């Protein structure tokens, strides 16, 4: 009795104390913004507040959207090291306000010269022996990030590489606070990080993951950034860093040599284009399958009255899922590096082909399983997207990656560069459009996308999330076009994903909708409420009447929009 009275007293005191320190009402790791950020002159939306701040600083100094994009990309390599960086690759789409044209640069990684279609051993049940495509030295493809960003800067930017890298050097040297998101990534990839001493040294603190609130300093990466800022990209592709990469590869049984690095070049490509209810959708062409298939999904859905069907109703989700299944079946069969294989992009983008696919869709019945062709491995979204618009109306969509979170786990010792595991995006057996070949780019789902309205830039948007990129972006675009949402609402809204039949969805999709879909015959898997499985879309939008700028950021990652 005495002890329970004491207990109650302690509890009351604790209750009073705790009341003053109670967490916010939302259980989400990150606060969910209700409204987009508004600004008049420039806007940056990226996956981390510190990276967005770097981009904004560049815009305020007079840099254009491309300058901001390049600076932010380097910053993301510091503050989101699990998702992109020097050791990876990416794509950038640029709307040039002066010429009113849209261009893109492909800086996807390429297979090393010594790579062969049968370089990976499979078990009898089709698994990759030793996870060699995702972990370790043989998983690494030749990085393209630095070359791609440099090309973008030379073609479209106004500032120097040195000036644009300076904020990131400071970030890496001074360190930054680890977020709950990054902590979660480190915990999820603890085994990978533990396995490689160079990675452990940087990303583990006394052998354990850095915790939310800890300070992470990246001195070796800062050193690499300084070398590049001072000596240019040649130090990475031909000089000291190239030597270090080659040495590490040789030590670990990897294939990349200095010759591979010296031979790497990014490629300017004509973007893919489509329309959706009068809006022009412009995105990445092959080797990204993403742009083509985002437009393909929208083409199919354009034939349904999505506004009437409603947002995330059972009827609209059913239609979306049926469209997605058909598109992924095509992706499995046809997508690859168009420099090596014939990809029927025009046909896939055509309204006629969409009409044919649409005929197979019943609003009442669940379609029979559409053959997937060659299966692709399940992937997590170790990728980062950022969007930009400047005071002159230039707009950038940039998505870059190192593939899976913390990629291969291989860090170049002394240089802090986490090397990609992009080889996993190839089909690991010979005879497929996406099989390994020397210097070939593996297919990607990355879809940095620009939307025009009446020829004027309206929206830059993109997301990480592997194959969920292809399904998330049509939903964000339809949320704006069909459902009248503002950019932040469009990003926040619950998402679904479907590839071959099973519909995965965030738990915020109403329960009755979930039950109706199950009753219809769909297999439904419900994930978290605000689940980063479904990507981390970051976007900027322009009110084409008033010129006001809006930034939307995804709380599923540490997304942050900043404008001035």
């Amino acid at each position: 009795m005495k002890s329970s009275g004491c207990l109650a007293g302690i509890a009351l005191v604790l209750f009073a104390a705790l009341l003053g320190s109670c967490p916010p009402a939302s259980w989400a790791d990150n606060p969910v913004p209700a409204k987009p950020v508004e600004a008049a002159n420039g806007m940056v939306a990226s996956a981390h507040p510190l990276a967005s701040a770097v981009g904004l600083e560049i815009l305020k100094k007079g840099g254009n959207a491309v300058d901001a994009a390049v600076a932010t990309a380097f910053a993301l390599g510091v503050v989101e090291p699990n998702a992109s960086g020097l050791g990876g690759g990416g794509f950038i789409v640029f709307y040039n306000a002066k010429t009113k044209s849209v261009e893109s640069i492909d800086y996807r990684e390429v297979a090393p010269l010594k790579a062969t279609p049968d370089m990976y051993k499979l078990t009898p049940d089709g698994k990759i022996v030793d996870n060699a495509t995702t972990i370790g030295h043989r998983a690494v493809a030749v990085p393209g990030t630095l070359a791609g960003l440099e090309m973008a800067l030379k073609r479209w930017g106004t500032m120097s590489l040195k000036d644009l890298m300076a904020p990131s050097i400071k970030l890496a040297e001074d360190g930054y606070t680890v977020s709950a998101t990054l902590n979660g990534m480190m915990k999820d990839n603890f085994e990978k990080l533990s396995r490689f001493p160079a990675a452990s040294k940087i990303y583990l603190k006394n052998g354990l993951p850095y915790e939310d609130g800890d300070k992470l300093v990246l001195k070796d990466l800062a050193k690499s950034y300084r070398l590049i800022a001072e000596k240019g990209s040649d130090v990475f592709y031909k000089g000291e860093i190239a030597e270090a990469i080659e040495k590490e590869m040789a030590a670990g049984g990897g294939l990349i040599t200095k010759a591979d690095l010296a031979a790497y070049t990014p490629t300017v490509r004509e973007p893919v284009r489509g329309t959706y209810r009068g809006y022009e959708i412009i995105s990445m062409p092959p080797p990204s399958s993403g742009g083509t298939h985002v437009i393909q999904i929208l083409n199919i859905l354009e034939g349904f009255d999505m506004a009437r069907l409603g947002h995330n109703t059972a009827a609209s989700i059913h239609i979306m899922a049926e469209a997605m299944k058909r598109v992924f079946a095509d992706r499995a069969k046809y997508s690859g590096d168009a420099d090596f294989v014939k990809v029927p992009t025009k046909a896939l983008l055509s309204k006629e082909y969409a009409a044919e696919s649409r005929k197979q869709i019943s609003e009442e019945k669940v379609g029979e399983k559409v053959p997937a062709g060659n299966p692709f491995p399940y992937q997590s979204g170790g990728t980062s997207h950022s969007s930009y618009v400047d005071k002159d109306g230039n707009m950038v969509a940039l998505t870059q990656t190192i593939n899976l979170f913390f990629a291969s786990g291989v860090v170049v010792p002394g240089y802090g560069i986490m090397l990609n595991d992009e080889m996993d995006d190839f089909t690991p057996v010979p005879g497929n459009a996406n099989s390994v070949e020397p210097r070939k780019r593996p297919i990607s789902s990355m879809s940095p996308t620009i939307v025009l309205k009446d020829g004027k830039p309206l929206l830059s948007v993109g997301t990480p999330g592997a194959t969920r990129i292809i399904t998330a972006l049509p939903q964000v675009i339809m949320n704006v076009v069909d459902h009248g949402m503002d950019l932040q609402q469009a990003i926040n809204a619950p998402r679904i994903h479907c590839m071959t039949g099973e519909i995965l969805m965030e738990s915020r999709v109403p329960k009755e909708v979930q039950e109706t879909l199950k009753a219809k015959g769909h297999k439904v898997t419900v994930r978290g409420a605000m689940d980063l499985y479904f990507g981390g879309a970051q976007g900027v939008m322009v009110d084409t009447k008033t010129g006001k700028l809006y930034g939307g950021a995804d709380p599923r990652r540490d997304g942050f929009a900043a404008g001035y």
Partner: protein
Amino acid sequence: MRVRWVVMGWAAACLLAAATASAAEVKFAAKEPVLLMSAGQSADVQMVKILLDRNKISAKTSPLAGPDELQGMKTLAVAVGGSGKGLGAAGIDVEKEAARVRKVLEKAKAMGVPVLALMIGGQSKRGELSDPFITQVTASASYLIVVKEGDQDGFISKAAAKAKVPIRFVEKISEVQEPLKTIFGK
């Protein structure tokens, strides 16, 4: 209105946590050697191993331990956290993992081996995959060590209260070292 209910819910969870935390001051002593296993196959088991090693606690780490491995062991430590990747790498599905865990817990009970459950994954190790393992292991545990961030909704506290198991909350994974030291008398 909604905010008020959420805050009240949190306050109730805090009270519950405070009550069980107080109960955690009840002495729980464990002995070596320890069999360390996983329930859910997340990487948390490797982190617990590091913490045991730091305290020089004699432990055999066997993430997929079977009941027979309890022979000669004085404590069963279970790192609770579900991981699709971990289950896949182990070649085991959720149902088989739950069955394995159940068998080991039953054997531990039959042998009188106390179960020390560690839930150190925080919020990232909560959800559809992990929560059933939390419930399962808590029901058989003698003591829980929990990183507080993983119990924001009071789920673990409620499970512990139901099973009448004391909890020690810590803020960070690194802080688990101290209660382990105390528990094992190091």
